[in-house]
């Protein structure tokens, strides 16, 4: 199992642009989710809030390697950064949180469940593991139609999600069909309160790749450069026909499971360990160190993000909430079934 770090030297030179791009989305995601979290704490968000704090590097690094309009990206609950990097308009996110009727689900499904399959971003259902096989199906269909070319399909999951039967069936099927699937596992050491020791017994989640006969790579999920380079390599391999890629990012979520949770189950030691480092400030420092941007540039990124977030939330806030009386209450697309 090759570690992403092995390849870093070769790739670093030409990845600075991608790193900066990813960093921008990380800042936007952090800014947005901090804001949503404070609105939530003021009691003004409907439903739960689940954030990706601490996971932005790993999340965006995948998405900046994808091409919207060509590739598939199926995010999960901690992928605000990846969603934005893939091209989701920020206002779509703001609209679901603020309950606008103009949101992508029209108020039918919530917050992190938003998606837009027409644009290559399937909308998640809650059942962990269930989205992987949907991505399989998209790739499978394209291959059948001859429209696959070198597109890839990426989807994300957590350490806990690897225990589901759905995860197993989908990865196995993808391997059998040699689909260009990338599954990124954000190994934040816990599934809600449950530590990895109660979730699996292999040494590393990448060990699971062996059982599917696919490639497994591990990466420091707090290190943006490592993440960008590793995903770059994996996406290239998938594009080249090398089959499914399992990428495991080791990190910690720097939040509760949801914003209602203060995560008493994460020990102080762990929080203070390398896993608990904040990917955002690490990336910030690295970018300065490498000279890829200066503090002024970065200040601008924060400033722009702040403006964008305020504006998106403002737009969403001022829109109407869904109206049950005019709502199209139908679960069917076929008109004959709606008579």
């Amino acid at each position, binding site marked *: 199992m090759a570690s992403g770090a092995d390849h870093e030297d070769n790739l670093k030179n030409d990845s600075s642009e991608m790193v900066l791009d990813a960093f921008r989305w990380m800042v936007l995601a952090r800014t947005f989710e901090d804001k949503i979290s404070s609105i939530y704490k003021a009691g003004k968000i409907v439903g739960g809030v689940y954030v990706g704090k601490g996971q932005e590097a790993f999340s965006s690094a995948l998405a900046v390697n994808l091409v919207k309009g060509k590739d598939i990206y199926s995010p999960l609950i901690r992928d605000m950064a990846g969603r934005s990097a893939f091209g989701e308009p920020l206002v779509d996110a703001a609209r679901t949180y603020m309950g606008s009727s103009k949101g992508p689900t029209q108020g039918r499904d919530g917050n992190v469940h938003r998606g837009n399959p027409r644009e290559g971003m399937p909308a998640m259902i809650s059942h962990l593991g269930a989205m992987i096989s949907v991505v*399989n199906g998209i790739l499978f269909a394209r291959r059948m139609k001859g429209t696959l070319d070198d597109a890839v399909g990426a989807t994300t999951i957590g350490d806990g999600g690897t225990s589901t039967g*759905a995860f197993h069936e989908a990865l196995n099927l993808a391997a059998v069909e040699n689909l260009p699937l990338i599954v990124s596992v954000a190994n934040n050491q816990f599934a809600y309160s449950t530590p990895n020791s109660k979730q699996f017994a292999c040494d590393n989640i990448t060990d699971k790749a062996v059982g599917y006969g696919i490639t497994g790579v591990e990466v420091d999920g707090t290190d943006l450069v490592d993440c960008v380079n590793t995903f770059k390599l994996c996406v290239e391999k998938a594009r080249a026909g090398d089959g499914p890629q399992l990428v495991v990012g080791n990190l910690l979520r720097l939040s509760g499971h949801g914003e209602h949770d203060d995560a008493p189950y994460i020990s102080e030691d762990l929080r203070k360990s390398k896993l608990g480092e904040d990917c955002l400030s690490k990336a910030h420092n690295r970018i300065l160190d490498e000279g890829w941007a200066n503090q002024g540039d970065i200040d601008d990124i924060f400033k722009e993000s702040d403006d964008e977030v305020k504006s998106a939330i403002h737009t969403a806030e001022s829109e109407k909430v869904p109206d049950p009386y005019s709502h199209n209450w139908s679960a069917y697309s076929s008109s004959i079934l709606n008579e």
Partner: protein
Amino acid sequence: MSITYLEAIREAQSVALQKNDEVFIYGQDIGFFGGAFKSTKGLYNEFPDRVLDSPISEDAMVGLAVGAAIEGMRPIVEMQFADFSSVGFNQIVNQAATLYWRTSLACPITIRLPSGGTPGSGPFHSQCMETIYAHYPGTVVMAPSTVEDAYSMLLDAISIDDPVIFCEHKYLYYHLKAQQLPKKALPATKARIVRPGRHATIVTYSAMVHEAVSTAEKLSEDGFEIEIVDLRCVKPIDIETVLGSIARTGRVLAIGEAFPWGGVTAEIISQITSEGFNLLDAPPARLNSLDTPIPYHPELWRFHRPTAHSIEDKIRKLIKE
């Protein structure tokens, strides 16, 4: 030439594959082997890229079908037996059936469930699962009772833009034969009056239609004319046709092969009594299987499911009330 119910299913798939490049079939052993029941026999030879073997992964099979539908395909998933769809249940009811609601994108998939009891098949190769799927919003659930319907309804199922659960009955696979396949047919969502009558109406579907017909023929000798409505589609239910029949007979017995709690017979009786209460001259009656898993031994199995015999008992009582 004569054609069986099973061959009609094969034929409908063949026609659909021919007419539409978006159609493909996915399931266990359906390729070269032609399926556990041979309902895809020969199709792999004709369409090697669109008749594809899957691993034993019902959850992933249905998930894949939904993904393919997102890409504009019209997948047909064959479950080896309806009973095994239980492990694909989540993807069916929560992924496929909600796709349109969540995203405004259609989900034109057909899931074929070889359903129902045959002697010696036991608790896990005999189930009728229509209730489970019909309960969830967003599904269409069909259960054809004739060779002609197996053909035309499967073609309808494939062309409908929403997930269709196609409950084909294994007992009918070889037992039923027709001279030819229909060119035109009643839409799949409409019920059909199988047999006119005036003393009572039996509302049923799938294999039970034939049990009901046997009973009706027998009672006819005694001067009782039983009208039989074949629902064909159990969700949505064509309640107008059902109420029309009851308007003529004043009495109704709903029959289903599935388990007794809830299910098609409960739904149908509820709709009848809510919407056509004043048409009824007697309490509506219901007949389902017994409330146990489906027994393996044929002696027990025959007793467990409704038969012409137990239907006759029920109808005679109903007519007297």
